[in-house]
Structure formats: structure tokens, C-alpha cells
């Protein structure tokens, strides 16, 4: 990419350049152009649309769960259906909402932020997306294909953690668990491909002058997150292959009746499962690192500390998985070890929160919708982190594990943290992607309704856990004192559903009729805002030259440019 004056996007013979845009041509040609595209922007949009579709599906599943739990001994759905719905809800939200949302943002933005024309491997990029998409379809096809010869089946009903030996043929007949395993293997290949692409892009595809320590923090966070995908999603893929060997070839990895081990599955799953949280939350941090400075009108505070903290979180998070297994019967020494490693993650995470506060400190904060969601993220992520520390206290965890307290905690992380950051990112970059602004009034409605619904739902959800309500139960006894709490939680879920509907309407409406955005509506500083909105297929007509971390700041303030910080332009390093 470094040599040649106008590199061809994706190295694919310039077909994309010749075609002006998705506009023009019949709808069939438009559809065709989206299906065969290798353009990182189109793939990014596909990832996000695909994720939003599944967000609605997973959200409907959440509402089914909440309706069923509204009354004790409710018969809205059967026990079997309930178990399928919560399994599908968990699997969908993690693998087919959160992951593609994260990959979508990275895909769209990283090449733009690095001032280049595409990802390192555009065709691998398309392959990764379609693998992920196919994985989601495979999972949902289980509703039709899972029934199998034994009459058991339909969608998987083993929980998204799918503890062995409940997944063995003896306990899970039909094909529903096979669809679950296969869909995660397939989408896992997609995730690994996307991660390789992000890493190769960040290291090998930067415009001139963009040294590693001038990269936007956004890209740094994606590098760490992708590294975690490589070492954490692969074990899941391996474990799913073993499960498939067990189920199809009569293997015994997790077959406890033939000496296999249920505990080993739990270890393998959480070796994936815990870093997965960081795979998702680091990109959320990435969005925060762009939104908070721009709307506070200040440079990010402590860039090197932020990079160090991210890398630190990445490494420490690989050694904490068994805090999901404090009740499974580990020795006291192992329990103590995982308590310590888990608590240690709190330190770099705390540093990040402090740095964001310091970035806002002394700024002139503009409360547009992206910033509202960012502040919501800060407060909620703080609480999520604190309940995380509470859960890491192993003896306390023996009480709280698998209770609704845990459910409340990780929804705080994933909804209150990650999803708020994603919403912030959607409002922030929508103008870049579509060329039109999202409606601010609707945005504020979305924000306030979602905040209220979120807190009504997930704050209250901690309490049934403390009162002894386990997770994954399709019904509960009337005399346990959980009824009213569950009703409040369900009510909160409904409010969030309404807020999401507002978002969807806002996106559709603004995409067609929104105010024109122009290239740089937020007066921002990173390279994506130097392109037109939406950017042309080739991104930059000529390759930009960068002298600091905030190239557009330098441009707007020629009298007060950022310090170059390190070696002069042109010195290579990696």
C-alpha cells in the first residue's frame, strides 16, 4: 500500500471505483453490489444492519422471558419453550448482536481513521461477514431443522453456556444442540478472520506519518480486542469441535458416563467466555475514546496510560476465567488465585474511567445525543464494575452465583456499558455513514426512555438474586417474595423495548429525510471526518499525511498544532 500513488482499493481491479455508489441501477443490481462487495464500508454497514435485525429478534425473546416471569406459575409459554428462548436470547445477543456490532464499527471506521482505502484483506473481510451471517441463520434454522428423528428438538435448550453433560446425546436428543454448536463454529471462523484483518490493518495499513502511537485510541482498542478474539474464540471453536465429535462420532470428551469430564467443558467455555466480555467491552471503550474528547472539546487525557491499560486488561483477562466456576468445587488455593486475578482487572479499568473523567474535566461539554449515551455509559459501567468486584469475592459468589444478581450484573455490563457505547457510536457516526444527521429530539427521547427503562429493569433485578432467585427458571413459587420485583423488571424491559423502537424509527426516518450532515458535523479531529459523508468507495482521493494524533485539529488550529510526540514523519516502525 505504501508504494504507488493511487493504490487500488482492495487490490481488486478497481471495480468498486468505477461504480459510483449503491444509487442508480435496478434494485437487483443494488442488491448484487451489496452481496458481492468487498468494500469495508459496505461490509461494516452490513454487519451493523445484521446485528440490529438480531437485536430486535433477541429483544423479542427477552420480552417473552419477561412476560413469562411476570406472574408466579405463569403459563404464557411452556417450560421447554422458555428454556429455548433464554438459550437463544443469550446466544443471539452475544454472538449475533454484540459481536457483529463491534465488528461493523471496526470495519467501517478503522481504514478511515488510518487514512487508507480498505482493510488489509478485503476478500477475507467479506468472507468473515458472510460466515458470521451464515452462523446466525444456521442457529435460527434450528427452529425448523432441530426436531430430528427422536421427536425432541427445535431450538437448543441447554443455556448459552451449554454445560456438559446436558449437551450429550443422552440428555439432548434431536439436532438442536448440533445447530447451536455448528453455528458457533461457523461464526467463530468469521470472528477469527475479522480479528486477523483488524490486526493486519492496524499494523500494515497506515497512511504516511501515522505511527503506532499516533493511531487513534479507537484502533488500539480494536487491536487488543482482536488479539483476544484470536486466543479466546479459538478455544471455543476447539471445544465446539470436541462437542460435535462427541455427538456425531461417539467421542467421550464430555461424556461423563465414559469417564469424560463436565468440568473440562466449563473450563474451555469460560476460557472463551470471560475474555469474550473484554472482546466486546474494549470496542465500547474505543467508542468512548472518540466521543468523550470530541464532545468535551479536549484531547484524550493520558493516551499512553490508556494504551497500557487496554493491553493490561487484555492480558489479565486471560487469567480470570474460573471466577465463573467458584461453586464447581475448585480447591481453596485456586479459588483465591482467581479472586486475585479478577480483582486485578479492576485496576486498569479504573484507570480508564479516571482518564475519561479527566478528559471531561476543564472541557466545554456539548450534550448532544452521543455524549448523553457516553455519560450514561460512564455511570453504568462504574456500577457494573463494582458489582463485578462484589461477585469476585468468592464466598459472596457462592451465594450470588447463578442468581439473578449475576444476570443483573452482566446485563449492566452488556446493556448499560457496551450497548450504551454502541448507541453513542451510532449517533456519532450515523452522519458519516449516511450523510444525514439522526434526529436530536428523537435521540433524546430514545436516551431518556432507555435510561429509565434500563434502571427500572436492571437495578431492581439485583434484588431477587439476593433473595435467592436462581437464573434460568421458567417459573417460581408464589411465596418467595419475588413477584413484585419481577413485575417491575418486566415493566422496565418494556420501556427499553419502546426506546429501541424509537431508535429504529429514527434511523429509517433520518436516513431518508434527515438534515444533511456535511463532512464534519461534530467538529472532530480524526481522519474519517476529512472525507465526504458518506465517503466515496476509495475513501481518500490522495493519501493523507499525518503529523500528530489529531490531524484535523492541526488543520483547524494551524497556530496551535498538537506536538508530533515522537520521531519525525517517515521513520518506519512497528
Amino acid at each position, binding site marked *: 500500500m505504501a508504494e504507488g500513488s493511487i493504490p487500488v482499493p482492495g487490490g481488486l481491479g478497481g471495480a468498486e471505483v468505477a461504480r459510483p455508489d449503491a444509487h442508480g441501477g435496478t434494485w437487483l443490481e443494488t442488491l448484487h453490489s451489496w452481496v458481492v462487495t468487498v468494500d469495508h464500508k459496505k461490509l461494516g454497514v452490513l454487519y451493523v444492519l445484521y446485528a440490529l435485525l438480531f437485536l430486535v429478534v433477541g429483544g423479542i425473546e427477552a420480552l417473552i422471558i419477561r412476560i413469562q416471569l411476570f406472574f408466579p406459575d405463569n403459563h404464557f409459554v411452556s417450560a421447554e419453550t422458555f428454556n429455548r428462548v433464554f438459550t437463544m436470547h443469550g446466544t443471539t445477543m452475544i454472538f449475533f448482536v454484540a459481536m457483529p456490532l463491534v465488528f461493523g464499527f471496526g470495519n467501517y471506521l478503522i481504514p478511515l481513521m488510518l487514512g487508507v482505502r480498505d482493510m488489509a484483506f478485503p476478500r477475507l473481510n467479506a468472507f468473515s461477514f458472510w460466515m458470521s451471517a451464515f452462523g446466525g441463520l444456521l442457529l435460527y434454522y434450528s427452529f425448523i431443522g432441530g426436531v430430528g428423528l427422536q421427536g425432541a428438538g427445535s431450538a437448543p435448550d441447554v443455556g448459552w453456556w451449554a454445560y456438559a453433560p446436558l449437551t450429550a446425546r443422552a440428555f439432548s436428543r434431536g439436532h438442536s444442540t448440533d445447530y447451536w454448536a455448528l453455528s458457533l463454529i461457523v461464526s467463530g471462523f468469521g470472528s477469527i478472520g475479522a480479528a486477523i484483518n483488524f490486526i493486519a490493518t492496524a499494523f500494515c495499513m497506515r497512511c504516511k506519518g501515522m505511527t503506532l502511537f499516533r493511531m487513534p485510541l479507537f484502533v488500539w482498542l480494536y487491536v487488543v480486542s482482536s488479539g483476544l478474539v484470536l486466543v479466546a474464540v479459538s478455544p471455543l471453536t476447539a471445544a465446539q469441535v470436541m462437542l460435535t465429535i462427541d455427538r456425531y462420532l461417539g467421542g467421550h470428551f464430555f461424556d461423563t458416563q465414559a469417564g469424560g469430564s463436565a468440568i473440562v467443558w466449563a473450563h474451555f467455555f469460560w476460557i472463551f467466555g470471560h475474555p469474550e466480555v473484554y472482546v466486546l467491552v474494549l470496542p465500547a471503550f474505543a467508542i468512548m475514546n472518540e466521543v468523550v474528547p470530541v464532545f468535551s472539546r479536549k484531547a484524550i487525557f493520558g493516551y499512553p496510560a490508556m494504551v497500557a491499560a487496554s493491553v493490561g486488561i487484555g492480558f489479565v483477562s486471560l487469567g480470570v476465567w474460573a471466577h465463573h466456576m467458584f461453586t464447581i468445587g475448585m480447591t481453596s488455593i485456586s479459588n483465591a488465585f482467581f479472586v486475585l486475578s479478577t480483582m486485578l482487572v479492576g485496576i486498569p479499568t479504573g484507570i480508564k474511567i479516571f482518564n475519561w473523567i479527566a478528559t471531561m474535566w476543564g472541557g466545554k461539554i456539548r450534550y448532544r445525543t452521543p455524549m448523553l449515551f457516553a455519560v450514561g455509559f460512564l455511570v453504568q459501567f462504574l456500577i457494573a464494575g*463494582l458489582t463485578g468486584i462484589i461477585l469476585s469475592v468468592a464466598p459472596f459468589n457462592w451465594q450470588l452465583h447463578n442468581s439473578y444478581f449475576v444476570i443483573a450484573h452482566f446485563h449492566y455490563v452488556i446493556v448499560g456499558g457496551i450497548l450504551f457505547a454502541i448507541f453513542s457510536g451510532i449517533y456519532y457516526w450515523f452522519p458519516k455513514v449516511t450523510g444525514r444527521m439522526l434526529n436530536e429530539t428523537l435521540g433524546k427521547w430514545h436516551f431518556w426512555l432507555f435510561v429509565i427503562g434500563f434502571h427500572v429493569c436492571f437495578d431492581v433485578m439485583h434484588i431477587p438474586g439476593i433473595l435467592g432467585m436462581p437464573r434460568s427458571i421458567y417459573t417460581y413459587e408464589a411465596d418467595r417474595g419475588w413477584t413484585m420485583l419481577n413485575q417491575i423488571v418486566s415493566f422496565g424491559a418494556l420501556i427499553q423495548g419502546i426506546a429501541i423502537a424509537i431508535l429504529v424509527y429514527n434511523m429509517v426516518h433520518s436516513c431518508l429525510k434527515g438534515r444533511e450532515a456535511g463532512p464534519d458535523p461534530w467538529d472532530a479531529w480524526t481522519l474519517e471526518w476529512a472525507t465526504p459523508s458518506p465517503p466515496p468507495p476509495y475513501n481518500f482521493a490522495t493519501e493523507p499525511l499525518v503529523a500528530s494524533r489529531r490531524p484535523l485539529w492541526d488543520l483547524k488550529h494551524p497556530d496551535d498544532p498538537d506536538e508530533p510526540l515522537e520521531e519525525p514523519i517517515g521513520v518506519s516502525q512497528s
Partner: protein
Amino acid sequence: MLSAAVVLAAGGAERALALKTDTSIFSPVSTPSSSIYSLSLFVLAIAAGIFVVVGGLIVYTAVRFRQQPNDDDSEPPQIFGSNQIELSWTIIPVLIVVVLFLATARMIFAIQDAPKPAAAVEVTAIGHQFWWEFRYPALHITTANELHIPVSPTGDPRPTFMKLTSADVIHSFWVPRLAGKVDLVPNRINELWMDPHAPGVYVGQCAQFCGVEHAKMLLRVSVDTPDQFAAWVKREQQPGVQDASIAAGRQEFERQACMNCHAIAGTPAHGQFGPDLTHLASRKTIAAGAAENTTENLERWIADPDQIKPGSLMPSMHLTPDQVREITAYLNTLQ
């Protein structure tokens, strides 16, 4: 958190406000659960402290530094960072982690590695899809779903030490007021102990998703006074009652497939798949707590288990109403 506080303060949930319900972890009656309770108060206090300080800082910053209406749109001074500040806000969390870790580690060892006194009652719990089997190896008792243990007053401790395992999938034994949960894992023996200080019935349920009827895998622990416990042990050690008046029911029980899965001591019934029924009539509930142990419920259960617990592994035997009545009458005598 804020709205949770509001909801709680709003009243109507007085029981919840006190957090002292039958299954509350904040209402402990045994040493492990009490220790966990005091540790949890300490941890919650630290978390609340951090929340107030950092949350307050976020709110202050977010409000204090918002753009003013009369702002001239100039950019604020750009500050890029400070190593001293980074260092200082790294050290404080490190100190908090050290304190929390030491308190936690102490408690882990105190609970998990507690020595077993000679007077301890030993129980082996075996998880089944969707019921509990309890064996008292020293007392030669096998029962199901309702665990009986003696009270353990502080002056004269008689704790119960349990070994936990599973016959099929992973389950988890959780009676919040007595102890933290421990999983029942196939091919593995886990341990748990508790020493309830007050007699009474303590409820809980399976806390690890184990299949269709996970939600109806309920648990009752009856903490008996020493006399009650001794009487219970004595009765449990007897074989099943042989009452001539219900011989027809017993014959039916043995002729149908019932005895393939259920055991009744003193009869040819030695099945192991289902709960031991030798003293079924003395239990308060049937189907692992899914229904009260009444004649009517028992008849419904035998006629069609799915009515009470859809997905339970007990099949409907398609018995005639007469057969159901006879078998129920027989079971009702098994005191």
C-alpha cells in the same frame, strides 16, 4: 441502583426491604452463611464508598464542565495527561484490591477448609434430573427431596457435612439461609457443610440449569431438634409399612413398572432411577417440591406426571382410575 432504592423506599415491598425472606442470603442462620453475610456487608460498604466518590466525580464533572449558554465557542485549553496523576489513581485501587483480597482469601480458607468434627452428621446428596437423593451412610438411610438435619447450637455443635455428586447432569445445591451453593457434578465429589443454629424448615432450589424442569427442582431442609431428629432417623431406618388393608395397592405397585424405578425397603421394589418411597407419606411435598403431598395431588401425579411437572422423567403408565386410587392408598400408608 437509584431507582432500586426509590422502589424499595416506596414501600409495598416491606419484606423485600428488610431483605429477610425465606430464601434471602441476608437472613443467615448458619456459620457459613453468616460469615458470608458479614463479608458481604464489608464488600458492599467498600463498593458503595467507591460508587459515591467516583460516581460523584462523574456527575460533578459532567455538570460543572458543560458548555455554558454564553460560551464563545473557543476551544478549552488542551491537556494531554500527567504521569503523576496517572500514578496516584493507580495506587489507590491497588490498595483497595489488596485489602479486599486479603479479607476474601481468609474467608475462603475458613469456610472451605473447615475441619470436620467427630460429631458431624454425614450426608451424601446425589442430583438427579429433577430431584434430590439424600443418603446418610452412617445411619443407613436413603430419602429424597426433603433433607433432615439436626440443629447445631453454638454450645454443642453438630454440623452437617455433605458430599455432593450427580447421577446425570450438573446441579447445584443452594439453600441461601444455610450456606453458599455448591455444584453437584457427575464423576466428582464436592463438599459442603452447614450448622444451622435454629430449628425450622429452610427452602432452596437447584441453582444450575439442568434441563426442562430445572425450575421445579426444589429443596427443603428440615432442621430438627435433637429429639425430633432422633425420632426421624429411627422411623427412616424401618422398612416400608406392610398394611394388609392396602395389599391390592401394593400388588399393583409391584405389578406395574413402578418398582423398576422406585425402591421401597422391605419389598421387592429396588429401583434406583426415581426417589426412594419407603417413607413417602412422611414427606410434605411430592415431585421435588412441585406439589404438596396430598392424596389428590398424588393421584394426579401418578395418573399423569406431566400435569404437575411437564417434562419430568416419570412416565404416565396409563393406569385406570381404580389402579391409581389403589396405588395412592398404598403410598399413603408409607409413613
